[in-house]
C-alpha cells in the first residue's frame, strides 16, 4: 500500500523482470530474475499471473479467445480441453454468458474479471494485482474483493496486491507493507497496522489530509510574497 507515485507499480515490474533494478538483485522462485535469458524469463513468467489496472485485454479478440490465449500459446492442449478450461474459469468469475463479447462491450469491472480469469488459466503460483479497485463502483469492488479472497484461500497461490483502497485490501490481506518515497516504512498484519502503526500509517490508513505527508508541495516562495511582488 502507499499513495500514488510511491513506487508500488515499479516493484511489480521489478518482480516480473519488466524493469531492471539499478542496484541489488531480485530473486523470484529462487532465481535471480535479471540474470535470466529471454527464454527462461518467459518460462518463469508463466508461473506468475499479473492483473493489470486496465485489464489489458487484447482488443481484437473476444472474451473467450482472450482467456484461451495463454493456453493456446503456452500449452499443446486440444481445442476441447481449452474450451473446458476456459469455460470453468469464466464460470468462476461469473461471466460464462459473455464469451462472445468484445472488450469494448465490457464494463471496467467485467473487463477486470475476464482479465482475472485469463490470469488464472495457467494456474500460476504467484498472482499480482495492480490497483484492482481503481475507478470501480461499490458493487464491482465487493465482487472483486470476494473473487480475490476466494482465489487466495481456495487455490495454492500467493497473492500480492497493490492498492490504495485501504479498507478493501486490508479486509482480505494477511500482511501489509506501507510504502513511502520508495521505502517500506511500516509492515504487519492488518490489525497491527491499523491499531499500532506509525504516524504515517495512521495518516494514510485514515485518510487525513495533512501530516507526515504534507498537503502543500514544497514551495519556496509563499503565496503572500508572490502576490505582493506583483
Amino acid at each position: 500500500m502507499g499513495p500514488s507515485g510511491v513506487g508500488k507499480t515499479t516493484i511489480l515490474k521489478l518482480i516480473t523482470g519488466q524493469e531492471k533494478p539499478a542496484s541489488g538483485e531480485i530473486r523470484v522462485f529462487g532465481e535471480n530474475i535479471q540474470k535470466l535469458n529471454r527464454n527462461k524469463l518467459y518460462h518463469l513468467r508463466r508461473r506468475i499471473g499479473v492483473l493489470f489496472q486496465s485489464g489489458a485485454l487484447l482488443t481484437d479478440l473476444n472474451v473467450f479467445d482472450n482467456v484461451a490465449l495463454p493456453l493456446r500459446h503456452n500449452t499443446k492442449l486440444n481445442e476441447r480441453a481449452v474450451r473446458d478450461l476456459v469455460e470453468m474459469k469464466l464460470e468462476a468469475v461469473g461471466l460464462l454468458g459473455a464469451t462472445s463479447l468484445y472488450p469494448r462491450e465490457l464494463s471496467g469491472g467485467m473487463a477486470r474479471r475476464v482479465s482475472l480469469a485469463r490470469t488464472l488459466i495457467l494456474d500460476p503460483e504467484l498472482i499480482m494485482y495492480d490497483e484492482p479497485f481503481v475507478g470501480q463502483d461499490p458493487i464491482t469492488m465487493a465482487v472483486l474483493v470476494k473473487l480475490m479472497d476466494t482465489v487466495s484461500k481456495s487455490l495454492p497461490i500467493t497473492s500480492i496486491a497493490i492498492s490504495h483502497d485501504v479498507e478493501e485490501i486490508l479486509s482480505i490481506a494477511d500482511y501489509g507493507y506501507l510504502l513511502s518515497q520508495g521505502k517500506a516504512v511500516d509492515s504487519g498484519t492488518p490489525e497491527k497496522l491499523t491499531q499500532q502503526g506509525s504516524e504515517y500509517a495512521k495518516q494514510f490508513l485514515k485518510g487525513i489530509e495533512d501530516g507526515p505527508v504534507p498537503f502543500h508541495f514544497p514551495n519556496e516562495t509563499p503565496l503572500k510574497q508572490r502576490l505582493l511582488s506583483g
Partner: protein
Amino acid sequence: MARLSKLGSNVISLFSSLGRAQVFLWHIWSAGISFSGVVKQIYFVGVLSLPIILVSGFFVGMVLGLQGYYTLVDFGAADSLGVLVALTLTRELGPVVGAILFAGRSGSALTTEVGLMKATEQLAALELMGIDPMRFVMRPRFIAGIISLPFLVMMFVAVGVLGAWFVSVGLLGIDDGAFWSQMQAKVSWSNDVLNGLVKALIFSVVVTWLALFLGNDAIPTAEGVSGATTATVVYSSLWVLGLDFILTAMMFD
C-alpha cells in the same frame, strides 16, 4: 554551449533510436514463425487498403492519359500514349505512390494499433503471460505488410493502365490496337515490371518496419501515439522517395 550540447544529445538520441530500430528488426526476425495471424493481418493491412489503391490508381492512370495525350499529340505520337503510361506506372508511380498511400492508410493504422496496445498495457500483459509480443503481434503484421504492398502495387499499375486506356481509347479516340501493341513492344517484363516489383518489395519492408517500430517505441500516452503516427507517415514518405532515387539510379542507369 547549451545549443551545442543540445545538438549533441539530439545526435545521440538519433543514433540510439536507429540502434533500437535494428534490434527491433532482429527480434522480429528471430521471433520464430507464427503464421496463424498473418491472414487476419493481411485483411487489415492489405484488403482494407484496396479501395484507396484502386480508386487512386484509376485516377492517376486517367490523368497520365490526358496529360500524355496533350503533350504527345503535338508530335504526332499520340499512339505512344500507352507506352508512356505503362512505363511511368510500372517503373515509378506504381511503387512510389502505392507505398506512400500504403504508409498513409496501413502504416499509420499499424503504428496507432501497436502504440495503443502498448499504452493500454496489452503488450506488457502478453509478455507477462509468457507470450512474446514480437512473435504474436509484430511478426504477423510485418509479414502481412511485406506481402500486401507488392500485391497492392501490382493492382495499382493494372488499374492505372486501364484508367489510361479508358481515357485514351474511350474518350480521345486513340486506336485500341496501337495502344496495346506499342505498349507490349516497349515495356520489358524483366526490366520494367520486375524492377518495379523489387522496388515495391523494398518499400514494403521499409514502411512496415518503420510503422511497427515507431508504434512500439511510442511514448504510451495519447500525444505519444499520435506523434508516432504522424512520424510514420512523414518518415515513410521521405524514405520511400529517397530510396526510390537510389534504386532508380541503380536499376535504370
